[in-house]
């Protein structure tokens, strides 16, 4: 458990309940502003052409918006960035509609609905929107999806010596699936991660595997959010970055395995 993966955060995107972007979210997480839970506002996905904007599902809009925040902060708009997408469910509404149609007498699902059903649909739209031909790693690890995405992104950064953008997003299912998988709202985190320190670096992170218990927020509302939406399990890391003090935090990952992240400001 001693292997440590070292990397540098260059850009952050954040959208979730009561968290409209990283600029305001960092003040809330640093304790400079109170956290007030509110329904997630998904902004217009500026990366998409107008026709696609109207048709895009929430998971596409959410992920592209968080990605754009992180890319702009890192000043990397024209880079051919390798990417990691980690979703605990995918597009819940699309899945619901397909299952509903397949249970009916008319099983003629539309071609668009079908190609939007693949877990990598968002990655496809993102690569088209950003004209990125580098690889995408498209992952799912149920509640461990944020940790799994972070770990995969860090292996790209440390082993292959490349910048990488992690996008971890979740959207709710409608009923009746909601009762089985009660994700209450949309939440996404994006991180641009680099192998070396540069003038763009915000923080250094060192990540290792641990059996220690995951960090819990003392603020009950934030803690409810962290547990309720898998991508929000990354919020404790964002809080350390927001506070700007050297410290470490244990992030939730798989049932018996978690991630220790040591954070230092740059």
């Amino acid at each position, binding site marked *: 458990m001693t292997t440590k993966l070292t990397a540098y955060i260059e850009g952050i995107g954040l959208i979730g309940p009561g968290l409209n972007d990283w600029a305001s979210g960092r003040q809330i997480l640093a304790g400079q502003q109170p956290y007030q839970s509110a329904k997630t506002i998904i902004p217009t996905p500026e990366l998409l052409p107008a026709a696609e904007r109207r048709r895009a599902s929430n998971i596409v809009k959410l992920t592209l918006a968080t990605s754009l925040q992180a890319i702009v902060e890192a000043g990397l708009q024209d880079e051919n960035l390798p990417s990691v997408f980690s979703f605990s469910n995918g597009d819940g509404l699309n899945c619901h509609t397909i299952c509903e149609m397949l249970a009916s007498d008319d099983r003629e699902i539309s071609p668009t*609905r079908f190609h939007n059903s693949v877990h990598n649909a968002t990655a496809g739209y993102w690569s088209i929107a950003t004209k990125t031909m580098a690889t995408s790693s*498209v992952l799912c690890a149920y509640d461990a999806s944020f940790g799994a995405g972070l770990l995969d992104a860090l292996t790209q950064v440390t082993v292959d010596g490349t910048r990488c953008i992690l996008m971890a997003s979740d959207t709710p299912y409608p009923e009746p699936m909601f009762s089985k998988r009660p994700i209450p709202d949309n939440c996404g985190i994006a991180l641009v991660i680099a192998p070396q320190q540069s003038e763009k670096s915000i923080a250094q992170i060192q990540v290792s595997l641990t059996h220690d218990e995951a960090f819990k927020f003392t603020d009950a509302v934030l803690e409810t959010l962290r547990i309720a939406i898998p991508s929000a399990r990354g919020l404790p890391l964002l809080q350390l970055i927001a506070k700007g003090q050297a410290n470490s935090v244990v992030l939730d990952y798989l049932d018996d395995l978690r991630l220790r992240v040591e954070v230092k400001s740059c």
Partner: protein
Amino acid sequence: MKPLLLSHFTVTSCIGKGLMQTLDALRQCRKTLKPCDFETVDLSTFIGEVEGVNDVKMHAGMTEYDCRNNRLAQLGLEQDGFSEAVNAAAAKYGHDRIGVFLGTSTSGILETELAFRHRDITTGALPEDFIYNKTQNTYSVTDFTRQYFKLAGPAVVVSSACSSSAKVFSVARRMIEAGLIDAAIVGGVDSLCLTTLYGFNSLGLLSTQACRPYDITRDGISIGEAAAFALLERPSADIDNDAILLLGIGESSDAYHMSSPHPDGLGAKIAMQQALQSANLDPSDIDYINLHGTATLSNDAAEAKAVSAVFNNPVPCSSSKGATGHTLGAAGAVEAVICALALQHGLIPSGLNTQEVDTELNLDYRLENQQLALKHVMSNSFGFGGTNCSLIFGLAGSLGVAN
């Protein structure tokens, strides 16, 4: 990249359960795609169904995972002594030093499709015995496999449509090179369901016959199901001459269209070139290409352009999908194992069902089996959303790696 050893591998598809049946079927050019009689599906198409999946009983303590996909996964894990090999590796390295990285596109969605048919008439609620996270969730098959072996290392599902279980080799490579693990179970499991059958039908991509990759009259895919697994480790100094090594990986995105490949196969070309570069090989070193070869008009044309652009001289190639059907998220792992069998047995497997190769595609597409010593082979996997992966495998003995 540093070569990785496929210390054990296995495959279960409609052409056979385990390596012996699969090799025999390839040698005999056995055709097992059949007219679709799956569940209540009323489509005029062919499927590749694994016999006996419904009869698989989940082991004690694993019944919550019961769905067609995990039944197929369990059936696959229990062929060729694969389970014993994983247990031996866990004893050698430690349970927390083995990762599980599997590819799937639909996971246990069939279970949800059936649950929707059985919604409560009054409340609309799904049946109480429907367990979302153990069956439908995309991660379910990795969760199942990790619990099956009681492993405690990193784990994830890659779900990038038809490149899923090729790209898991890349996830495992990085985890091993980073020093987080010593070995990884990689592979793919995808099973028949209504979503893919009706979905591909809506796109007009299902053939009404057994699929005919690279045929001049090809008209679409046949959907199959499969489970394929490999145990990846760092090669030791004393590996056998006929051990299979993963030598190169190339990955790219088309950035072109959600359900059509780049017409010139630009992303496919990048993936193949990167795979050659990471294996430190020239195009002339590749003795056989297992094509993605889905048998749709545009996919085969795009792949052929890409292959012609990368390889100056014609390379023997074929698609296994005429035998197994397109096993979607499992296809990359199935074809990786077929490549391993081709290397170990000096077999260039013929493409089945194809009558007349489309000469405009300008490939050395094989319609008959050939016995030929092979050193390096390439396997291509390209998916919806323009996600591409090419893998290169080689025999340890022919590379001077073995003693």
